């Protein structure tokens, strides 16, 4: 029973939450709002994808919010301030963010400094650098916002009624999914996070895997920043404040363990949706911003506690089944149910 709850419980909770808000909050169950939430989902979702990879590998990236800001500000400067072509600006911005992620990864693996410290330092350093690069020299009213139509498609456009950012997110999601489930890298990533001794013994370059996750995380955060900038038409410096908490929360709610070695993109997706729905519903209900973060913090905390309890329950179950099998000499051990489900040979 508990196992079913764990796999689908989150989905159920999400649906229940959505239902509650649809009934209680004015304007929640409208097309416009759903489209808005999907756009929000895309933006947070990019970061969540990157963070999921990092966390599966046993690390953590706290600098994503700042990389998002960096991307936004760079986009603003290049497109609005210097009038660059988006086809040149966007790849450059993304490249820079990717390099920042790479730097994170190298510092963590090479210098063996805990990821928590490195990315926490990055959180402040990158934000500082980004803010100093922010030249909001508004020369006229028309110059106050990014207005390049090609660029604006990213955050504001629709394709057959579906937000472009969502489509983009789905593409990235699919790519990440393929990476995790169909490539060697994905398997090795779980190994590195789950039992890095086993990974090493199998000849996996643990450091390289970790560096890649941080690099991808940087890229994803950059993507978020670019799309957000497109949506807001400006490189908002206050954006992304606390984003890392929401994103990590979403990943943990989605079932990943902070110790590494477990977690799925599907879970992260549901976790992210959960956070988005919660945020949107609250603001439609008129909950003041500070109570919102309060409530969000409480929810994430609750999710982690429940996860902790469920994990301990699972460990106890393992002991029970092993001892039970000790008693039933003549019966295969508890692991057999898996084999049975798929058929003994």
């Amino acid at each position, binding site marked *: 029973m508990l196992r079913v709850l764990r796999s689908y419980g989150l989905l159920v909770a999400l649906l229940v939450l959505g239902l509650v808000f649809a009934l209680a909050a004015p304007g929640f169950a409208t097309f416009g709002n759903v489209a808005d939430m999907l756009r929000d989902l895309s933006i947070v979702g990019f970061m969540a994808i990157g963070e999921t990879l990092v966390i599966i590998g046993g690390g953590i990236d706290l600098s994503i919010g700042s990389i998002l800001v960096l991307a936004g500000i760079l986009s603003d400067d290049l497109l609005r301030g210097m009038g660059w072509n988006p086809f040149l600006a966007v790849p450059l911005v993304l490249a820079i963010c990717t390099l920042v992620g790479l730097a994170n990864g190298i510092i963590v693996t090479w210098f063996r400094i805990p990821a928590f410290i490195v990315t926490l330092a990055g959180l402040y350093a990158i934000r500082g650098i980004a803010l100093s690069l922010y030249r909001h020299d508004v020369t006229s009213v028309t110059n106050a916002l990014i207005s390049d139509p090609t660029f604006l498609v990213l955050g504001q456009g629709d394709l057959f009624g579906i937000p472009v950012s969502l489509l983009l997110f789905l593409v990235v999601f699919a790519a990440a999914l393929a990476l995790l489930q*169909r*490539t*060697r*890298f*994905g*398997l*090795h990533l*779980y*190994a590195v*996070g*789950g*039992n890095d*001794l*086993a*990974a090493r*013994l*199998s*000849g*996996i370059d643990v450091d390289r895997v970790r560096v890649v996750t941080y690099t991808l995380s940087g890229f994803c955060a950059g993507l978020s920043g670019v799309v957000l900038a497109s949506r807001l038409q400006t490189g908002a410096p206050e954006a992304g404040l606390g984003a890392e908490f929401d994103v990590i929360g979403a990943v943990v709610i989605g079932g990943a363990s902070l110790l590494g*070695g*477990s977690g799925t993109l599907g879970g992260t997706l549901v976790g992210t949706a959960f956070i988005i729905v919660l945020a949107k519903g609250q603001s439609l209900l008129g909950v003041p911003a500070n109570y919102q973060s309060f409530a969000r913090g409480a929810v994430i905390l609750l999710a982690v506690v429940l996860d902790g309890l469920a994990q301990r329950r699972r460990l*106890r179950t*393992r*002991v*029970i*089944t*092993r*001892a*039970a*099998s*000790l*008693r039933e*000499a*003549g*019966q*295969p*051990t*508890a*692991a057999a149910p*898996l*084999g049975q489900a*798929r058929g*003994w*040979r």
Partner: protein
Amino acid sequence: MAVSASLLEVVGLTKAFPGVQALEDVSFTINPGEVHALVGENGAGKSTLIKILAGVYQADAGEVRLGGSPVAIRSVHEAQQLGIAVIYQEPALVPALTVAENILLGREPGAGLPGLVDRQALLAEAQRLLDRLDSPLDPRARVGELGISWQQVVEIAKALSLDARLIIMDEPTAALTLQETQQLFQIVRELRAQGRSVLFISHALEEVFEIADRVTVLRDGRLVTTRNARELTRADLVRFMIGRAVDESASRARPVAGREVLRVQGLRRQGVLDNVSFTLHEGEILGIAGLVGSGRTELARALFGADPIDGGEIWLAGKRFAPRSPKDALRAGLGLVPEDRKREGLVEAFSTAANISLANFGFISRLLGWIDQTRERLLATRLIDRLAVQPSSPTWRVRNLSGGNQQKVVLARWLARNVKVLLVDEPTRGVDVGAKDEIYRLMDELARSGMAIMMISSYLPEILQMSDRILVMREGRIVLELSRQQASEERLMEAATGGVG
């Protein structure tokens, strides 16, 4: 089983660690297609030998020859390349991945584009390997949800996929049930039929006779003998292992035990302890025997308040005793020397004195927790002297002590408290011979002075030598209770394993 060329030869292998000579001039041969048992007491050198073959340690002297030519095994990778696979008691597997993914970790079959994995091929290959072991294990099962015996199968399949010629197993049956052990042996026979060799360490002598072709006995780091299993009797083996006939063991005739100091009634904990009842008296050493996983350590921890219980009662000196934490147990006069002193017993960064005072805050501090450094030092020095801890400086960091001395420090902690009941879990595990003897003598002394000692040990000669009474546990239950006079290794082993073999 006669084969001309040997698979692996160990010649004159020697290895020393600070304070102890782990191996000295050990030489023996493993033939292809052979199941070879490595037997010996704790500390005889078996683990060291295996680690040298696995590439974890390097020998000080001697050589290893494969197929006649000397090889250097400088790393775990090199060992793997040479066809040596090691399966430890704690499987080196990734819980989140499936059986197939674990077996072929790092060598996944590719599919078209670089980096992609051909899942069909992966499953097929894993299935093929499992078939060769005749195992019903499903390659799609997630390793994290498997019991230990299945995880072992995965490790063996992995070894197979590396085409290991020699598969080394370190006490593989320690955590297995009877049924699972038989399944493992089936696989071992399969491996043998394929011309591979298996070298396994075991303490379960009847297993040795059941599955091994040849047996090598180590004692105190030296080779005693290598024989065909068929040529040996159990008594022979025991004699080789401990260097004396079992019934010649020094019996320290102790005065008859005194008053009852601990009574346990119907202790139970779901899945771990099943209706455990026994008594313990002053001046008595109660030996608790049984295989790993039989619930002995859990019993000690439950008595010490370290784990909760579901039911049952404990009486200490006639009064109800229901510890909710080790702190309660301490106050009631209990002490626990845990099974794994590195992980559970010592704070490695602390000095000897600080480790001793860890359970003696009341003594070293008078007012508000202020530590009286003189008292602390005096306490430490007194105990260091009594137990002959080497080096004798109280400020020496325990990290740098030998295993035997570390164990003494843990014991010292409880001696300082003058505990009434001492629970000792594996008193001489990983302890060199000299310190082992000292610890035995100490325990004898303590018992004579009136302390009640419950001694858990996986090492039957130790149980027989030290205990006044013996309990054997199996599957969380006490299955046998006898006095030392009535006991023998055979009877104890029979009871511990359920009587088969």
